[in-house]
C-alpha cells in the first residue's frame, strides 16, 4: 500500500530519528514485556540523538488546562 519510494524515505527518516535502531525489538534492544506495554513504538520516547537543547524561544503557545476551586476543568488560551 505504501510506494517503494516512500518506504525508502521512511527508512531515511528512521536513520535521522532513531540512528538506525530497529523498529521491531530484539532481545538486545527491547524485552518482550516492555514491547507489549509500548506495542506501537519499540523505541519508546528516546531522545533524538542529534538535537541540541540550546535554541531560543520558537513560539508562544497559550493553551492550558485550568482547574478552578470547585474542581471544574477548562481549556483556556
Amino acid at each position, binding site marked *: *500500500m*505504501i*510506494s*517503494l*519510494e*516512500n*518506504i*525508502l*524515505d*521512511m*527508512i*531515511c*527518516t*528512521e*536513520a*535521522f*530519528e*532513531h*540512528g*538506525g*535502531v*530497529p*523498529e*521491531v525489538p530484539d532481545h538486545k534492544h527491547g524485552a*518482550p514485556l516492555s514491547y*507489549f*506495554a509500548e*506495542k*506501537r*513504538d519499540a523505541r519508546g*520516547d528516546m531522545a*533524538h*540523538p*542529534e*538535537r*541540541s*537543547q540550546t*535554541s*531560543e*524561544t*520558537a*513560539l*508562544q*503557545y*497559550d*493553551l*492550558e*488546562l*485550568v*482547574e*478552578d*476551586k470547585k*474542581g*471544574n*476543568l*477548562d*481549556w*483556556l*488560551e
Partner: protein
Amino acid sequence: MSTFTYYLSVLEDEPAKFKVRIEPDTALPMIREALASSKDLRYSPILPAFLSPDEEPVAPPTTPTSIAFYFANQPYLSLGKIRLAVLDQAERDRVFFTEGLASIVLLNCDYKRAEELQAEINCARMEWWRLSAGTLRFEDVVQVGKLVAPSEGLSFEFERSGDAAIDVYVEQIASSLASLWSCYVTYHPEELETLKQFVKLANELLAKVVALAEGEQTLANLRKRNAIISALVELSASLSYSVTQGTSGSSPILANKSPFPHHSLLGVGGAIRALTKFTRYLEAAFRTRSAAEVIRRQYATKTARIPTKISRYESGDLYAVSAERTDREEFDQGGDFRVENDIPLLTHFSLRHGFKEAKFSVTAASESLTAECLPAWTLMTLSHEIMHSRVRDILHVLFGNNWGDDDPEEQWESITTDFDKWYHSSDRDTAPIDQGIRNSVLNFCLAMDRSAPVAVRRSPSDKKLTKEEVLGAFRRFRRLATELFVHFHDYYFAYACQPKLYVMSLWASWTTVAAPGARPLEYLVRTLVTVASGTGLKPQAAFDYAVEQLKDGLDALEAVEVGSPLFDAIRSFLENHERLHTFSLFKPAYYLIDQIRYYFASPKIATEIDRLETDPFAEGSTVAEDYSASIYVYGSQGDLVSPIRYSLAALVRQLTANSPITDLQWLTAWNALVISSQEAPHDQNRFF
C-alpha cells in the same frame, strides 16, 4: 470442544511406516500417546464441510481406508461447485476442509473417483493415501499433478556487496524468495507479483548501502547504513516467516512438516492465504487513492482555514458524515491519485507480536488459528493493523524526511515556524491544507503535553516554547495522534461508522491485550472520540453521545458474557469528577479526529470496500447492515466476497450470541476458508 472438529493424526510407528487415525474432540490423547512412546506425531484439525441446520454431521471413520487431499486454492468456491452437482449425500458426509494448503480432504474414496473429483475441484495438486488397517507406507502415497510453470521466472539480480555482514542478509532474502517463488507458482500464483516487488525493494536497499559504504564515513552516514541494515533484517525476518508458515503442508505432505505443532501435518497455508487475501482486498481499495499523493499534490496546493484554538473548538455540520456530503468530501477532489509501485504487506501469524504492523508486514495473533471467531481474535483486528500502514504513509508525508535531506534540523525549524504563524493567525487567514493538517497534529500533541491541570494560569513567559520543546511534545504524543488517525480509518472504512458495534469490537478484543489494562483512560478516550467523530456535535454533546454508545456497547458485551474488570475501570472514569477529567482529555482528541475525518474520509475508497453487488452473503442487498455470514451459504465462480463485511458479520454473529453452532475451531477455519477463496483484486498487474 465439540464433535464438529476432528483431528487427523499421523504417528511414525516405525521408519517409513505410519499409523493414521482420526480422533474427535481433542488432540490431547494422541499427544499423550506420542509422548509415552517417544514417537513423532503430526496432526491437524479437519472439519466437516457440509453442515445442515439442526443436523449433526456424520462422524468420520477412526481408521479410514483412503484419504484424498486436494490442494485447492479457492476451496470455498470448489465446495460450492461440487456440493450438489458432483457429490451424493454419502460422499458429502466424507468431505472435510482444513486450514492447510491441502484445503479439502475426502475420506474413503477410491483412486479413480479421487482423480475425477480433482478435475471438478480444479486444483493443480492432489495427494492420495491408501491405508491398510490404519497404516500408511511411503509407497502408498500417490502424488497427482504437474509442475506449474509460470510464463516467466523471477529475474534475480542480487549481487554480493563485499561486506560479509550485509551479504548474510542478501543470501537469506534471496533464499526465502526462491522458496516462496516455487511454492507460490502452484499454491498462490497471485502473490508472484508481490515477490517481484520485494526483489525491487531489496535491490534498492542494497544499492543504497553500497553507495553509503563508498561515501564519506561520517556518523550520519553510519546511522543511515544502520537504518538500512535494520530494514534488511526486518525484511528477511518477514520473508522467513512467510516461508515457514506459507509453504509447509505442501505436497508431499509427509515431507513438509509445519512449524505450528497443532497444525504439524497439513500446516496453515490456507489460513495464511486468508490473511493475505484480507490484506490485499483492503490494499486494493486504498490503492485507488494515494493519501501521500493527495497530500503532496492536492493539499499542498489548496488553502483552507483549519481551526487553531482547541479551547474554543466547536466542531459543526461541516464535520458530520452524511449522505449529502458523499460527492463533496475533500479527499476525493482533484485528480486521479492512485498508489503506484507499492510494496504489499507480507502477512503471517505471530504468537509473540499478536496483531501488529511493521513497514513490510502485518501479523495476526496465532490464537486466530483456533479462535478467530471470538471477538478477541477476530480478523477485523487485522484491518486496524492495515490501517496503521496507511497512516504510516500519511504521517511520513507530513513529518518525514527523504534521502535528499541532509539536515533534519532545518525541516523542523520550518515546521515550527509554520506552526507559530498558523497558531497566531486570524480567523480569516488560510494556509495550505497539508500545513494545516500538520499543525493540527502538533496542536493536539502540545495540548496533551499541557493536559495536567494547573490551579493558577501560567504567565505569558511560562507559555513560551522552544522548538525542542515542540519536538519533544510531538515525540511524546505522536503515537497517540497516530492511533486517532488509525481509529478513524478503521471506524469509517472497515466498520462503516457503526458506533455500538465498533465499541463492542474494540473492548471485546482489548480484554486480552495488556496495554488497555495499563492505560485504561487513554483507551477510553480513544474510543470516545472515534465514535464521536462524524457527528458534528459540539464537544460536550459529542462526549455525552459517545459515552452513551460506549455504555450500550459494554452492556451488550456483558449480556453475552464478555466481561472484564477493565469495563468497571473505564466506567469509573465516567463518573463524578473523573468524568470532567475524561472530558478534558476528550476535547483535544475530538478536535484532531474531526480534522482527520474532514480531510481523509473518502466515499470513493469506502465504495471499493463495500462491493456487495456480487457477494453471495449480501443476498442482493448493497447495504452493509443487511450482510450475513451464514455458514450454510456456498459460493460459486464469479462471486466476490468482501472479506471485511464477511468478517464483520461473523463478528456480529458472535457478539450477539447468534451463531447456529458453537465449535470455535470449525467457525474459525470456515471463516478462513471463505476469505481465502476471495478472487484476486482487479488490479493485480498494477506493478507494471
